[in-house]
């Protein structure tokens, strides 16, 4: 459904490319996790997929159509974004979610849009929040509203940039479960970056390891080995199996960085 073919991108014409031919394939309803060190190009790849940046080379196809040729509104009705630093104005939760429908209604929301928002709030158990000020909510709550807003776009793909970055463990778990549930129920694909390897295992169906601007390893849980982690993150971890699930334990930095 989503296929990035050899995507390259540089911020500056003279600068070094951040993406050097990244490719990935994601099917409808699949949850893909993008893993890699800081600066490996995860956010840049997302921004290319979302149309915030235009790829310098390669192509991004979505359901067979070239994404770079779509208008912003067409794209917004297919792909929604849950950013890392979630900002809202001083709006009510209801209006914040309704805002997600702006690519559908354009200038003025219709009654159908209001009903769609009410349905989403009901489905996500946010009804009692409807008239609260979104700027005054906690980080976890705001994350949930951002997901609701993304759902209001009726997307086929949702892109999460570090969805659990600012959350405590219980909220982290809650958000991932919520996203997973939505993906399964509505057959929406998800592409997400995550730092925590164990959360990634718990969340994803497919994994993409990004290094130096290319996707170096891609596949299901079976491809994740101690060697892959060492190559991508330069750390030694132990993978143990608990109840048939891979769990990552320990880890120390490869090489003797502190000798220098």
């Amino acid at each position: 459904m989503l296929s990035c073919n050899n995507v390259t991108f540089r911020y500056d014409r003279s600068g070094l490319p951040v993406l050097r031919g990244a490719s990935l394939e994601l099917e409808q309803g699949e949850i893909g996790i993008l893993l890699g060190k800081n600066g490996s190009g995860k956010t840049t790849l997302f921004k290319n997929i979302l149309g915030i940046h235009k790829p310098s080379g390669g192509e991004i196809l979505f359901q067979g159509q070239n994404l770079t040729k779509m208008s912003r509104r067409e794209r917004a009705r297919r792909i929604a974004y849950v950013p890392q630093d979630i900002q809202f104005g001083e709006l009510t939760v209801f209006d914040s979610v309704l805002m997600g429908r702006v690519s559908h209604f354009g200038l003025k929301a219709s009654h159908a849009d209001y009903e769609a928002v009410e349905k989403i709030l009901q489905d996500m158990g946010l009804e009692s929040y409807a008239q609260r000020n979104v700027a005054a909510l906690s980080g976890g709550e705001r994350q949930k509203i951002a997901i609701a807003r993304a759902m209001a776009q009726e997307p086929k793909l949702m892109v999460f940039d570090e969805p659990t970055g600012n959350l405590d463990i219980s909220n982290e778990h809650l958000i991932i479960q919520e996203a997973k549930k939505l993906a399964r129920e509505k057959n929406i694909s998800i592409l997400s970056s995550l730092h925590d390897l164990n959360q990634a295992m718990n969340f994803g169906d497919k994994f993409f390891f990004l290094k130096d601007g290319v996707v170096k390893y891609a596949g299901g849980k079976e491809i994740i080995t101690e060697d892959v982690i060492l190559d991508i993150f330069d750390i030694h971890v132990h993978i143990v199996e608990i109840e048939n699930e891979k769990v990552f334990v320990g880890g120390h930095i490869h090489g003797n960085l502190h000798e220098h």
Partner: protein
Amino acid sequence: MGSIALLQKKRRKQFVVIAMMLLAVLVLSFLCLFVGSANMSIKQCLQALMKKGTNAHNRIIWNIRMPRVLAAMVAGAGLALSGLIMQTGLNNAMASPSTLGVSNAAVFGANLSIIVFSGGFLSTGNNPNNWDVGANPYSTSLMAFVFAVLSVLLILGLCSLRSFSPGVVVLAGLALSSVWTAATTFLQYYATDVGLSAAVVWSFGDLGRATYRTDTIMAIVVVIGFIYFRLNAWQFNALLSGDATARTMGIRVDALRFVSMLLASLITAVCVSFLGVIGFVGIICPHVTKKIMGQDHRVSIPVTALSGMLLLLLADTLSRTIGSGSALPVGAITSLLGAPFFLAIIFSGKENRKC
């Protein structure tokens, strides 16, 4: 109660607030007609309003007070609106109608006209002896306007070449403002004392310079701006989530920013060119509105416009009442009147989380 029903209840409340403010504006503007240095009685004013008073009284009401009250409404709404749009568009709470250097450029243009082309152009309001002809030469206003627009186009042009990120636009505006201020200083340094005083007096905002013609020109620009801003209320709401997120929601951020900055600056340019600098309306009104009504632009756009009208009407009435004979500069009054209220709102516990 379902969330839609709650929402409708809230909308009704907002509608009531807007209706009340509109009523307040109408009442206040009516009352403003009764205040002035001619010390006309209420009866005389009413007679003059129906054009049944003495000739002098008719003209005072219809040719001095009426254009002035209309100017307060139009310029108040315009300056407050462009402040709100600048703040949202540039994602900067300190942005104001003059952020892009508009006011400073207008002041320079006016100074150039008065000092270099030797004054005499100062528009002083309607001429009661020849009231159906707009007797004022527009040259100073025209120069002010030309430079204000030049300044805006320069900044927007520069930014579309490089970057339309809010930080860059604000900094470019700051840089250009200081250029205009410096150029004005040079002009004033070489000016004669008459020229200098005329130039300085020009820069004090004064609603008394308004005529029906200037009111009409200002109203056209303000109304066009209002319609564009209000139509794009959801787009501005989306902009509150940051540029990147707004883009992923289908908003053409750069185009929206360009057009709204241009319109907001044009509104300011027109108002400043005709009336002089009226500061602080564009900061106070949007902030007070946002604190009390939240940031939803569907509501904050009309409410900000109405609060701008109210503030300027009040300030102008006050300036004519306490000035005993000569109206005090309305720009100073807006700040005197608005700043304490503004501070009270900022420091009140209503920090507040209502929208």
